[in-house]
């Protein structure tokens, strides 16, 4: 089954730009379903990016992050072919992880 995490990581030799799009409802817990019941909050809380064994970027998210969340950042110290590891955990205890090679 495909990972929920889509990653694009490209290096220009010096800087690696990372974009990630994650499939996740990011429900706020404030919205009602057609039956009138509140859809419980269901959202990614922590997201981590590791490269060459080092944490390069981390996110703490709340329910105000959009559905199918997106994030972009850049970092130095990596090169083409290096592996980037991305993992997330949500408020229900679920998690997912993926790795991507820097292009």
């Amino acid at each position, binding site marked *: 089954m495909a990972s929920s995490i889509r990653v694009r990581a490209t290096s220009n030799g010096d*800087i690696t730009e990372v974009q990630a799009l994650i499939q996740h409802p990011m429900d*706020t817990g404030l919205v009602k379903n057609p039956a009138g019941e509140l859809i419980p909050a269901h959202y990614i809380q922590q997201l981590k990016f590791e490269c060459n064994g*080092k944490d390069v970027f981390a*996110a*703490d998210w709340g329910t105000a*992050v*959009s*559905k199918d969340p997106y994030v972009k950042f*850049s*970092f130095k110290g990596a090169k083409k072919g290096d592996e980037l590891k991305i993992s997330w955990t949500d408020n229900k205890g679920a998690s997912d992880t993926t790795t991507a090679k820097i292009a």
Partner: protein
Amino acid sequence: MTTTTGPLATRRLILQGAACVAVLGLGNLPFAAAPARAAANDKYPEEAFKQKNEADAIKALYGKTAEPSDKVKLDAPEIAENGGVVPVSVTTTLDKVTSISFFVAENPFALAASYKIADGTLPGVANRLKMAKTSNLVAIVEADGKLYSATKEVKVTVGGCGG
């Protein structure tokens, strides 16, 4: 010149040092500064996300207040095409940035997202946020132990018949 504040130095060490460290449960690491505080730094800031207003959220997250700075560049639309997916980004020319956060003043809970910027990571982030209604969007940058902010009002309209 490295900062002298304990928790920040510890955080930097943790980020740079131990490979394969599970980022939760750091209380037992043999670092000089308070390990408990170190653990708190990588723990999910539950309290901050529970705060309703912006000032309380900033206090809960950082324990200090911010001063506006034109060195923080906040990019957000004038009128959000849809309040559910507002593309927002921040870049800054400030040095030694360790954290960037976003607050939506009129949201039920002001803190939207908080990012930890490791050493070697550029001080900038782009993301997509939900805005309940027209509101001030505030970006906070923690640089060299101090907080700097930029604010922009983003108008949010309720979608009508569609285009």
